[in-house]
């Protein structure tokens, strides 16, 4: 079968003109134009460029919504199997346009797209999570190679051939880690890596992480007598039966539980579902993780104004950072909206 491609290029690669024609209005032409011609040749008739969508770079930047609507119309008219945009190399506005049309096609029509950009293009960081962006040189001098790499990757995607790593397929990784099996076990790989490192030879770490965000300590609460205090915990204290089915480890959610009218957490009504410690003490007295009993006494004594009538719980062990940060931001927002002024975070 011949796959149908809708191809996006700017006014320059369409041969219309340079900066002076950057406000060129969007236009759809049947068949391949500019780099799309070479792309189609590369595919050896396995794919056909059914139409080329052309737009001036400035026009796009100033009329994003309008151009994307026209791009939608082209998708409906030509019913492509895949979108290709560029390659845009180092260009800023052109890269931005390429990223937008592919993301639009993906979000609204579940269509995959392939772009081609240089690492210096700001659009790489903007769009890499959402699409395949093939690595290219920084100018049109590397057009031939770029189109060859785009062809290879796009045909694999169209045919459903399993893809290798981002490095093997020559695109900027989409910030996704994927497991795979290797020939040598981890121990042998580690020893080989150490030998190279000690010998000052090149070695490739299998993972490097950005330094995680450090959260500064919040200023202390100056006026405790007027404070509304909330109790938060990662010790997995939930109502008996775990109604939200929070996981014992690698939690994907948190819970918010009403404690209105309670002087303490009753051991018959609350339990810990944490999977990283011996929960028998927490189950015997859940107040030892979420100290509602002590806080209620402080409330009566007037040392704090009020204990907030909800507690928040999740399980810390094995949680992914993205999930944990998400919980934190969510909960913080709810607490600010509820005018809670202080929080006690019990971690286990």
């Amino acid at each position, binding site marked *: 079968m011949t796959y149908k491609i809708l191809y996006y290029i700017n006014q320059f690669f369409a041969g219309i003109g340079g900066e002076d024609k950057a406000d060129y209005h969007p236009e759809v032409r049947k068949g391949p134009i500019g780099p799309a011609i070479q792309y189609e040749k590369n595919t050896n008739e396995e794919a056909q460029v059914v139409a080329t969508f052309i737009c001036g770079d400035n026009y796009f930047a100033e009329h994003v919504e309008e151009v994307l609507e026209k791009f939608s119309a082209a998708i409906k008219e030509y019913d492509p199997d895949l979108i290709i945009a560029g390659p845009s190399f180092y260009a800023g506005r052109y890269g931005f346009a390429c990223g937008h049309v592919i993301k639009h096609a993906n979000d609204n029509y579940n269509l995959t797209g392939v772009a081609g950009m240089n690492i210096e293009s700001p659009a790489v960081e903007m769009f890499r*999570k959402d699409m395949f962006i093939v690595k290219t040189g920084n100018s049109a001098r590397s057009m031939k190679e770029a189109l060859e790499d785009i062809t290879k990757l796009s045909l694999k995607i169209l045919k459903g051939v399993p893809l290798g790593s981002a490095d093997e397929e020559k695109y900027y990784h989409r*910030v996704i*880690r994927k497991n795979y099996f290797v020939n040598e*076990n981890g121990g042998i790989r*580690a020893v080989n890596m150490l030998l190279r490192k000690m010998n000052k030879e090149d*070695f490739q770490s299998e993972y490097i992480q950005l330094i995680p965000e450090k959260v500064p300590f919040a200023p202390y609460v100056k006026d405790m007598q007027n404070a509304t205090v909330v109790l938060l915990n990662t010790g997995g204290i939930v109502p008996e039966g775990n109604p939200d089915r929070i996981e014992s*480890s690698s939690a994907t959610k948190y819970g918010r539980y009403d404690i209105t009218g309670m002087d303490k957490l009753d051991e018959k009504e609350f339990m810990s579902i944490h999977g990283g410690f011996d929960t028998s003490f927490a189950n015997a007295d859940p107040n030892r993780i979420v100290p509602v009993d002590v806080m209620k006494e402080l409330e009566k004594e007037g040392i704090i104004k009020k204990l907030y009538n909800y507690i928040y719980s999740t399980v810390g062990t094995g949680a992914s950072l993205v999930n944990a940060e998400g919980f934190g931001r969510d909960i913080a927002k709810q607490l600010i909206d509820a005018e809670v002024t202080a929080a006690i975070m019990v971690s286990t």
Partner: protein
Amino acid sequence: MELTFRSIVIKGLEWADKTYVDNGVLYVNKKEALLACGEYSNIDGIDLHIARPGENIRIVPVKAAIEPRCKIGDKGAMFPGIVGPMRQAGTGITLALKGAAVLVTESNDIEAKCRSGAILDMSGPIAAYTPLSQTYNLIIDVKVNQNVMSKETLSTDEVCRLAGFKLAVYLADCCKDDVADSEKTYTLSDVSEDLPGVVYVMQLLAQNPEIIDFHVYGQLAGATFIPTYVHPNEIYDGSVTTFLGSHCTVSADKQYMYEIQNSPVIEELYKLHGKTIKFLGVIVHNEVLTLKGKERASLFVKNISKALGAKGAILVTEGHGNPDEDIMMNVRNLENAGISTVIISDELGGRDGRSPGLADWVPECNAMVSVGNMHELLAVPKKTNVFIGNENSMEIVKALVDKDPAEKDLFFIEIKDIPLACAQAGISNLSARWI
């Protein structure tokens, strides 16, 4: 210290009237083997099962995996202070039954008080992730006493732990008179001082004074333990033992005893000793919960490494989350002392692979071997022909996912629950890469 290491390769496992090996097949007298596990008053009993590679069998939870080993002659000790006498291990003659393992599971734990998952299938998708699907397994099934279990879990854990080591020694002991398939000698011989010295830093969980994590010469090495030096031969003879106690949800990245006994890093460093490196030995580090404790442990790891004259270190870890802090602290301290480091770690990348893999990172860490993202989902069969262990533990293993797999008879787990799937001492072949 010199250790003669003999191996018999096991290619079959059968019940018989007598325990012996013939033509690679391990025959086991069930009654004798049960006696070898020991007698305990706080459990309802012990049963034994066989699980061979490729069989349609599921075992949950896998609390221990041990390669059968014993000493031959009167020198040395196997599992010193636990099964063997309290004397120098790593010397004399050791016999190992390669390709066999003793597994420990438990049943009758109605409320799943142990809260351990650790799911092993001998065939199918799970089997591909763990070396324990490739071994001929004799499984100790501890029938727990519900009354005891409702009060505390430690005494039942202690039974599971002891029974496993005892049976492992018994099996090898019964094969002592048989001809070994191979023999090797391990010794850290004197080599050129010009070769760079390398240490192996073994970080092990020590998360709670009362949870049974790891032992050194039979002594529980909890929060009060100070990192120490052991000879690699002592590792081969089980002077450092681990166990997956109750309330421990770590299994993919747990250093099961089987992995420690078969440490690929120690094996490789031995191979290179005298050729490209000088293997200096093993430093055991306890991953405690307090910041001060971590700082103290890391200080000792650095000091011992320097005293040994190390130029390089391979660091392996156990668990995830707060142990990431231990490994980063060790990397920073060692690199700043002029010692090159490589770490082996898994990643906690989230089910979509988009989360940062470790809880912390330091700029000094530039060499990591990744043993995979333990959050990745795997569709596995709901049922197997045979189930050994505690059906109630399955609730811990089931991943809560919005949609089920396309096939009706499958469900999702995270690979974190497969023993040794993300093996942080490096025995498995999984890794992760960017896509």
